[in-house]
């Protein structure tokens, strides 16, 4: 109980002094009572979900929370995206009452893949959503093989946990199959992008081209993006599994529309990748037996307010802020920007702080040449590594303006831009850029 109180006080003090105190609060709580996470999580009355995978964790987890809340359930969630041990502990501690008890039906927790081995000794989840595996911050996490090895061990630690896996990602599917855990799949079995050699996904970096089971080169009927698609191994029995939650009749002409389990799903979002996020949250909740009668309503009200396609209006300019922190994510971001056919200005903010990964070579794995379109009125590069970003654009023959200070860059484009501005940022630039935009909007 002392741990709960102390953590709450620390968190409040930090919030008052303007700092994100969540992680610190969690760390202190664990220090005072190392069993606090195990104890509090055991008070969850029904099920515990965790969400893992390179991209889409936060959006998927927050959607899942909203979906479960709409069923009238109480839950614990690490909304802020603090997804390592201390952040997860903090989510439970801060949700607990002053009596040290937790009053929750469900927990929905996103977990950094590398932290699963540290968190699972405290509790065994009932469900794990595995969204996808892409190259991400090689200087922090190492190669994908290392991440896969960690997740494999984590799944084996929680052998009764049901894995809800993206069936279109051969790497994630291989892990789920190999673990021996029960699993359910979601995916998109119809071909959405007709011209496979086209700019949409012609030269994208693709992970795992070779069968993890036997080493042969996987064959694809089609790709959705990166290595996601319809695949099979020509040499062994490894193949895309039967899809339990299959999105069909995909329509991206005005927002996102698709069907799953005979239901029509509509969301006013942009970006093909958001179909996967919605589908993942839907599949997880359905696997746990929730009816999701109000899911349409959940999607309509869902406003993440965390820099994932977040919209602002500043002096008549429509501003969209979006996080893009690795090649697969950035390529999907570019697709989302290009889905908007109106003229637009783009600001790209690249930092290289520890949480971003200090290695920014990945910029060269992003298909920035797709910005060479009439509708792109200007590109502005900003942030700590703006020089590298300017060079990246130069080598696809796209001129850009360098304004290192993010606020000045935004002010310049609001003043002289075309009224439709996209700000694409990597991780540590997200919070500061969002604060700038919130400040300017008011």
């Amino acid at each position, binding site marked *: 109980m002392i741990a709960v109180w102390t953590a709450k006080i620390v968190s409040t003090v930090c919030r008052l002094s303007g700092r994100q105190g969540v992680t610190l609060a969690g760390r202190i709580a664990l220090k005072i009572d190392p069993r606090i996470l195990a104890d509090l999580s055991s008070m969850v009355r029904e099920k515990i979900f965790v969400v893992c995978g390179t991209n889409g964790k936060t959006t998927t987890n927050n959607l899942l929370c909203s979906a479960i809340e709409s069923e009238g359930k109480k839950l614990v969630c690490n909304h802020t995206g603090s997804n390592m041990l201390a952040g997860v502990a903090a989510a439970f501690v801060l949700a607990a009452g002053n009596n040290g008890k937790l009053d929750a039906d469900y927990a929905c927790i996103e977990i950094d893949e590398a932290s699963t081995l540290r968190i699972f000794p405290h509790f065994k989840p009932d469900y794990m959503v595995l969204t996808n595996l892409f190259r991400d911050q090689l200087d922090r996490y190492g190669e994908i093989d290392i991440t896969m090895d960690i997740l494999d061990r984590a799944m084996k630690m929680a052998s009764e946990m049901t894995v809800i896996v993206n069936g279109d990602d051969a790497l994630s599917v291989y892990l789920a199959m190999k673990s021996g855990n029960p699993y359910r799949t979601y995916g998109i079995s119809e071909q959405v992008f007709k011209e496979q050699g086209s700019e949409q996904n012609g030269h994208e970096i693709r992970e795992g081209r070779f069968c993890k089971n036997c080493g042969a080169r996987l064959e694809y009927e089609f790709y959705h993006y990166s290595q996601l698609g319809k695949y099979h191994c020509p040499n062994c029995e490894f193949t895309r599994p039967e899809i339990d939650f299959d999105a069909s009749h995909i329509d991206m002409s005005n927002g996102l529309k698709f069907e799953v389990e005979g239901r029509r799903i509509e969301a006013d979002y942009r970006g093909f990748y958001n179909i996967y996020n919605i589908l993942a949250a839907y599949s997880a909740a359905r696997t746990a037996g929730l009816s999701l009668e109000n899911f349409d309503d959940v999607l309509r009200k869902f406003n993440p307010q965390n820099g994932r396609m977040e919209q602002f209006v500043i002096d008549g300019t429509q501003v969209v802020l979006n996080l893009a922190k690795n090649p697969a994510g950035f390529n999907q971001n570019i697709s989302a920007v290009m889905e908007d056919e109106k003229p637009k200005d783009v600001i790209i903010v690249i930092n290289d702080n520890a949480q971003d990964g*200090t290695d920014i*070579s990945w910029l*060269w*794995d992003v298909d920035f040449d797709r910005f060479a379109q009439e509708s792109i009125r200007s590109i502005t590069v900003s942030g700590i590594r703006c020089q590298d970003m300017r*060079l990246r654009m130069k080598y696809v023959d796209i001129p850009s303006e360098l304004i290192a200070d993010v606020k000045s860059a935004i002010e310049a484009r609001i003043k002289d831009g075309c009224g439709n501005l996209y700000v694409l940022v990597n991780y540590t630039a997200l919070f500061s850029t969002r604060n700038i935009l919130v400040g300017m909007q008011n």
Partner: protein
Amino acid sequence: MKITIGHLYPDLLNLYGDRGNIQCMKKRCEWRGIEAEVREFQLTDPINFANLDIVLLGGGSDREQMLVCEKLRMIQKDFRDYVEDNGVVIAVCGGYQLLGHYYDTNNGRIEGLSLVDLYTEQGSPRLISNIVIENELFESPIVGFENHGGRTYIGDNRPLGKVKFGYGNNGSDGAEGVLYKNIVGTYLHGPLLPKNPQVCDYLIRNALERKYGSEELAPLDDSQELEANRYIVERFC
């Protein structure tokens, strides 16, 4: 004039940013009116080194490197003849390690191509850092990012540069990379070439010289490249 760049096994050896090295060589040729063709080779493709002017061998994970090295043994002789005939090679990270005799890892030995008299041993921890090196061959320092578990020892060979910041070949002898005939081997990615245009031009010039005799490269406006280079030097040195 035309240069043909062979990209070896990009499906397997394509860690962060290798594409940037290809793009940089291609553009810096094209901006000078030199035609540049890039040929990608998969593991099953035959390689005729006589048709190539620059060969790029990139980095991959240990597992992927193991797959590649089995294949490389089959083309070892052709590759060696190309190198001894002053063929230009740029080998980065895992590709650099493969140039040598072997790479001893905790999971066994990866046999190399023995194109250069060097060898690599796995060490701990991984050497991960921004890096700045110097060589009087080049006006500006060479900057990049390194991330490798292997410690490479190049014996009496010339290094690509002396370490000013970062770790280099093995974190102890102050050397980074290797220069042998027209081979450049290095742990620097970032990718290497865009922020180090003088290294890129060194490769292109050597390739042109081998193919057409002595060649002067037309100057390019490198102010953006050199500004990005200077930013790293000033931040870390």
